């Protein structure tokens, strides 16, 4: 059985202007100890997807449909208190901005130990001892002395390490990292990523990592999901996706990456491709990528929504014009 099985997840925001379909029928599954990367442009629904799994969507947002079965239990159906027992215990989560993700008025020690005491029933002394070990595990120097410091004494990279320590403190089976390095200084990004991978293999955690940076997931993720406008548009193993991307959007994303000399791996940030993602209040009726797609012609693209189909074993794509079925050049080039 998979560790996490997400099925047709839908999260809508009821706003004054109308219903924003931030997550619109997302399905995927994650096996034990595997790593899944979710990539896509800003606003495509990556964060809302994982927040929905955690039951952390803020009003006016609401999970309106679908399921997220984690170790046999559907998190979407769990009651508030049952979900609280899962969060931070069986699923750990870290966020994009470590500067604002820790409470400025409580010591690092308090913020670490409260999770241990809450979920593992440790007493104060046990929790403190464990907290020091955890800080050492995420390579904070002088861990014992730094336990009583407040977050403002820690640098951004160190705060993210603390966030990681908190997230893994109860030995979760799943770690969700929402753009864990985006807000960090370039010089410390690699260190934080290495730490994540190190801990992942030690603790045998499944990991969902969200990123803008293809380089972050290229080498390490097992599977990759590409999201566009609230939907999954391509899903495959990392190797297959980088070798033979099928969706025109994925292609454009990969083409926009600078090639690093001497290495076979493409690295770098997602550059904006021409045009803008659609307004989720009123997305294109059929293929949501059609207005920006170089291959969308006079055919069904504007009228029939493409299904997510398995173009070859393990490789799913939502497009009428995947690379391997394409003979002609882009419409514009003709």
């Amino acid at each position, binding site marked *: 059985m998979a560790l996490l099985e997400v099925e047709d997840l839908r999260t809508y925001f009821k706003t004054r202007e109308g219903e924003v379909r931030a997550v619109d029928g997302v399905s995927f599954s994650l096996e034990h100890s595997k790593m899944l990367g979710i990539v896509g442009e800003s606003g495509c629904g990556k964060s809302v997807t994982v927040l929905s799994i955690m039951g952390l969507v803020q009003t006016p947002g609401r999970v309106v449909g679908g399921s997220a079965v984690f170790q046999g239990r559907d998190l979407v159906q769990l009651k508030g208190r049952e979900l609280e027992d899962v969060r931070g215990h069986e699923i750990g989560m870290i966020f994009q901005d470590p500067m604002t993700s820790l*409470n400025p008025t409580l010591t690092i020690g308090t913020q670490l130990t409260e999770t241990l005491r809450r979920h593992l029933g440790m007493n104060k002394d046990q929790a403190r001892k464990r907290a020091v070990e955890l800080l050492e595990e995420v390579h904070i120097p002088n861990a014992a002395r730094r336990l009583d410091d407040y977050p403002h004494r820690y640098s951004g990279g160190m705060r993210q390490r603390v966030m990681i320590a908190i997230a893994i403190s109860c030995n979760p089976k799943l770690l969700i990292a929402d753009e864990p390095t985006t807000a960090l200084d370039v010089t410390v990004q690699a260190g934080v990523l290495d730490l994540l991978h190190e801990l992942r293999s030690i603790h045998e955690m499944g990991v969902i990592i969200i990123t803008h940076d293809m380089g972050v997931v290229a080498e390490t993720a097992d599977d990759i999901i590409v999201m566009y406008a609230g939907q999954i548009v391509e899903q495959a193993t990392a190797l297959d996706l980088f070798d033979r991307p099928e969706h025109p959007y994925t292609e454009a994303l990969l083409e926009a990456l600078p090639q690093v000399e001497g290495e076979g791996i493409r690295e770098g940030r997602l550059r904006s491709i021409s045009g803008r993602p659609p307004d989720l209040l009123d997305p294109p009726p059929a293929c949501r990528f059609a207005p920006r797609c170089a291959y969308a012609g006079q055919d069904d693209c504007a009228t029939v929504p493409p299904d997510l189909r398995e173009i070859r074993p393990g490789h799913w794509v939502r497009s009428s014009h995947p690379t391997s079925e394409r003979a002609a050049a882009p419409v514009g080039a003709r």
Partner: protein
Amino acid sequence: MLKFIIRRVAWTIPVILLVIFMTFLMMRQIKGNPFQVTERAVNEATQRTLDRKFHLDQPWYIQYAYYVKGVFTANLGPSLVQRDRDVNDVIKDHFPVSLKLGGLAMLWAVLVGIPLGIIAALKQNTKLDYAVMAVVNAGYALPNFLIATVLIYLFAVKWREHTPFPTNGWGGWETWVLPAAALGHAPMTFFARIVRGSMLETLQQDYIRTAKAKGLRWRRVVGLHVLRNSLIPAVTAAAPLLGFLITGSFIVEFVFGIPGIGRYFVNSVTARDYSVTMGITILLSMIIIFANLLVDILYGYLDPRTRDVRT
């Protein structure tokens, strides 16, 4: 933290000196001399003796030094109008009353206002929130003499058989309730609004999302993570408020016939009792300085970032 407190306390000394100086300066700007007020004019020899006794023949900085010495040795000199009474006596008689009234009003404001703000924020955009805020906003607009009058009318007149509250005077606890409520009403609404606003802001913070993601019980998320941060603005505002409540209760003291210092302060000004006016001014300034000191220390306790910046 201790270093921070010591530093902060040390800083109040020059501030107090400055306050005394300003008060002193202002009083000197008033033309004339208390002993030359027409109906009580004295002859020249007496005037000279008086000048000597009160150091009025000395240059101003010597007078200032004498006055500072007086303040720090808690001797504010005699009243110029009331025979046989020192400024100290005036303060001793009337200040405790104002202190108690202001303190009770503050207690009312905090104990009612903060919970109302918390409830309104947690139930944002529900009927409960609207009801609380309607009462608070309406109350905010009413001046305290009106509230005092209404309270007297309702509790001390209309329902006098059923309530123990008298219309005026100052004695047992039943005489404290109505004045404290009247005086504390405005700051109560103020606390409710400020706490509601900062709670709503704090609830949106990333670290609250972190606290939830850790699986903490909602009680702890609100009681520790949200509250601690949302009380900071309320605490900051509390200092001037407390000072204002102790010093600015003149109207309520008047309406309820309470022998507090606010009433006496106003009387001293009209009676040209300069030494009393000065003494009370300095006392009240010191209260405000002290309240600010208290808040800074509390603030340092609530928000650790400020400790590092200032030490």
